[in-house]
């Protein structure tokens, strides 16, 4: 048999590497003004967190200074009611949220290695990763497998969703006590139902596509289809959702801190800083203002980021 039709496209460029592709798919966020602003805000706080790991103007818990001082040259953001440097506390406050997680010495009876060394990446991020993982698993099972899987999973998730979020936090924390890992767990549990609903609806849409039929007619296993055929195509919305959830998580951690049941000391906690300084608000508002702005700007930044990214994503899909 002779080749009768021409071979198409022999001069296509080479495929970019996986990292390049990942970056390219991320970089679309810079097409959106809103998204770019968001990225900048988030990047700012991450840099602050990283810098604070190696340098702060003063030790965060040192009480050596004049109390309730308004901003001066030596204390650019002023001091709080115990005479601690607000800037240093603000900087250190980013750490547990964004870049480190303090592990207990012992977990379920096992002594953890590495002694006092914290685990990299902050509580908010671990919590969101947790809910993304758990939620994706449940959502995929409910959405792709359908039937009684769907009924049971959704029923349980509905039950979880029915809890006002803060109440769930309160219950988890009153049940398990304070600690970085407990906060991670609480974020995971409160976030998973939402992720699962999202992934479920995505999976129900994606599973109608012909390429899923193709995989099924190849006799692929349910797990292969869920994790290799469906999940990769949900990554855009999942990234957006994850971003928003990091925002919620920081929001929630701040709130818990404000209520006095958030991340345990000794590291300063923004929510708690607001709470402690509140009674002195008539003396000086600064110690309340700074952490408030910090939380708001970080959460807003993440939201803008997610918004911009989503906008560009839908545009590129059109």
């Amino acid at each position: 048999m002779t080749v009768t039709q021409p071979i198409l496209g022999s001069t296509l460029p080479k495929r970019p590497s996986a990292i390049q592709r990942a970056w390219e798919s991320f970089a679309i966020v810079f097409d959106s003004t809103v998204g770019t602003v968001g990225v900048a805000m988030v990047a700012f706080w991450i840099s602050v967190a990283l810098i604070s790991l190696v340098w702060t103007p003063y030790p965060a818990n040192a009480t050596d200074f004049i109390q309730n001082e308004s901003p001066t040259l030596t204390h650019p953001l002023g001091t709080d009611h115990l005479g601690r440097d607000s800037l240093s506390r603000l900087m250190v406050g980013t750490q547990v949220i964004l870049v480190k997680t303090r592990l207990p010495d012992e977990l379920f009876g096992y002594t953890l290695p590495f002694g006092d060394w914290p685990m990299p990446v902050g509580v908010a991020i671990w919590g969101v990763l947790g809910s993304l993982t758990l939620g994706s698993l449940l959502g995929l099972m409910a959405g792709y497998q359908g039937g009684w899987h769907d009924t049971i999973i959704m029923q349980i998730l509905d039950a979880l969703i029915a809890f006002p979020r803060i109440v769930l936090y309160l219950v988890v924390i009153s049940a398990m006590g304070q600690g970085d890992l407990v906060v991670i767990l609480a974020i995971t549990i409160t976030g998973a139902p939402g992720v699962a609903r999202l992934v479920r609806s995505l999976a129900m849409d994606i599973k109608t596509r012909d390429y899923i039929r193709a995989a099924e007619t190849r006799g692929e296993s349910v797990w292969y289809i869920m994790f290799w055929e469906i999940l990769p195509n949900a990554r855009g919305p999942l990234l957006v959702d994850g971003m928003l959830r990091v925002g919620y998580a920081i929001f929630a951690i701040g709130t818990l801190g404000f209520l006095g049941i958030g991340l345990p000391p000794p590291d300063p906690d923004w929510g708690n800083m607001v709470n402690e300084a509140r009674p002195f608000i008539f003396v000086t508002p600064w110690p309340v203002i700074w952490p408030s702005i910090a939380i708001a700007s970080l959460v807003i930044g993440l939201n803008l980021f997610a918004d911009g990214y989503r906008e560009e994503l839908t545009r590129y899909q059109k």
Partner: protein
Amino acid sequence: MSSKPVLSVKNVAVAYKIRGGEIEAVQDVSFDIPRGGSQGIVGESGCGKSTISWAIVNFLGSNGYVKRGSIKFQGQEMVGKEGEELRRLRGDQIAMVFQDPMQALNPSMTLGSQMKEVLTVHRNMSGKEAEVRCIEMLERVYMPDAANVMKRYPHQISGGQQQRVVIATALLTNPALLIMDEPTTALDVTVEATVLDLIAELRREFDTAIMYISHNLGVVARVCDHVGVMYAGEMVERGTVEEIYKNPTHPYTQGLIRCVPKLGADKASSVLYPIRGRVPPPNNRPVGCIFGPRCDYRQVKCEEERPALRQFPNGQSVRCHFAEEVDWRAWKPTADVLPPQIATKTGQTPILQVDGLQKYYTAQGGSIRDIMGLNKPRYVKALEHASFSVPKGSTLGIVGESGCGKSTLIKTIIGLEGSTAGDAQFLGVDITTHLSERDESTIRELQMVFQNPDSTMNPSYTVGQQIGRPMARFKTVPKNQIRAEVVKLLKAVRLGENYIDRLPSQLSGGEKQRVGIARALASSPDLVLCDEPVSALDVSVQAAVLNLLLELQAENETTMLFIAHDLSVVRFFSDYVAVMYLGQVMELGPAEAIYAPPYHPYTEALLSAVPIPDPSAQQKRIRLEGNVPSAISPPSGCRFHTRCPRKQLLSDNGQICETTAPPWQNVASEHHILCHIPKEKLIEFEPVIREA
């Protein structure tokens, strides 16, 4: 042609602003429509057909604008018209009908209120008056039970009826111009035929000028007197329907006509000639003639100078430098579009044998008793008593309207659904079970090609990964040789080696479909099931993909089941054809036998509904009444009896059809018809189409 045109489009160019520039979706289009005239616009997708219609009503969205030219409606300039003045014209003087009636109607308003508001707003009628007028109009478009329909919501009536409502709404104010954008594309062929009849009839009766957009030459031939052919934003040829179809002058028009199979043509006696290459994207059009890169007559001048639309003495206008020299009859295919020569295959050892195959889905009832499980469970009888066998290396085509069970049949055979009764064997192995219960070797031997190019490939993986996966999964190829094997397959579907690392988003529809075919072939299956593999493609691409499938089939001796709703394509592609209606095979036989008498009455109706791109052909007019009955409680006796136009031929007006299931009659060797009418009478039916 009468005095002043209703619509006069002059040298219009429309552009859409996009990030980093703009694209000219329409460049230099001109035409006039006189009172009572009907102008067809045909072209492949993305050529700017819809854009023109949006430009006329000045509804181009926030990023579109008319860049040049003028659009005059009854002498008034429409370009730049805005506000109240524009609003008063829309819906009153100019009405539009769109492709998908389900989408075009508001799901949460009754049909009546959606119709009436046209009159109450534009004509200041009272609700009562408007109601009367609407019912009249619904009756005018042959809507059964018109008064009742007014109270219903869109989802409560069928697609064909929805489109009637939309058309009735458009005609309420007796508009001077009616724009129709693919009004029948979403409809089944028999429904389409009735809607087209309606449009043709209304056209004669109302003095409305019609602009009719379609991608289907046959449809335009049925309802228009003039037609303009568009290519990549330009109108390349314009003239009367007769002239264009008989004497296509522009090389593109010629190509279009050559690349669709004629109804009745088969792969042994005729060939399809795809147009080579693909439509240039709007922001990357060639200088000179836009069609140049795909044109067989191209000369140096074509690359340098853009041809103008020139009018010829016979009234035809053509945008080609060499229009006088291009002779449609003297055309010879060049080597690169020459398709394979293929003989029809019949009568070898069967590879697939299906006997009485049945598939029921459980239906969900709505009443409280249903939910409590008190009522007997009801079933959607999606497939009933399917029996046939397919010889090795041949193709069985399956035709029928949407919902007739074509896809269920294929899904049951491939194992996406387990069957509920009956027997099916593939090379002697039982395949009535669900996929998960089949062994690997059977799974490997049955593969599928899908309809929608945009969803056939997983957007997250490269071409190479997707074609390679079946090889890795079935371990038919050692790991280190997969890449080499993928390259081979790519070559086989005429794609270059460089495609291996492409992502689906970087491919055109036709290319994706080729990759889908390569993936299906990767495990070297013996049986490939094709579910409408070309129906989502543009005609010029469709021809190439069909040719490719034919070629690969001949090369590998693959057996195929081929579903399509386009009867010409099925006829062209298949050796055997099964005609299905409401879950049941009605007629089965060699392809050529199906398309000539004796016919099953349903087949006859289907054939007479097909729009053919030849205005001079004589086509018998048989129209089916009513809707397809529900598959939950299909009619007793013959499932077709509620709509059968032929049952009067039987004594008692076909009483027997309502009570007794018809027998299979063997009307010729291998040709079977499920009908009570004796074969002697069936043979006397006239052929549906007689070419002039």
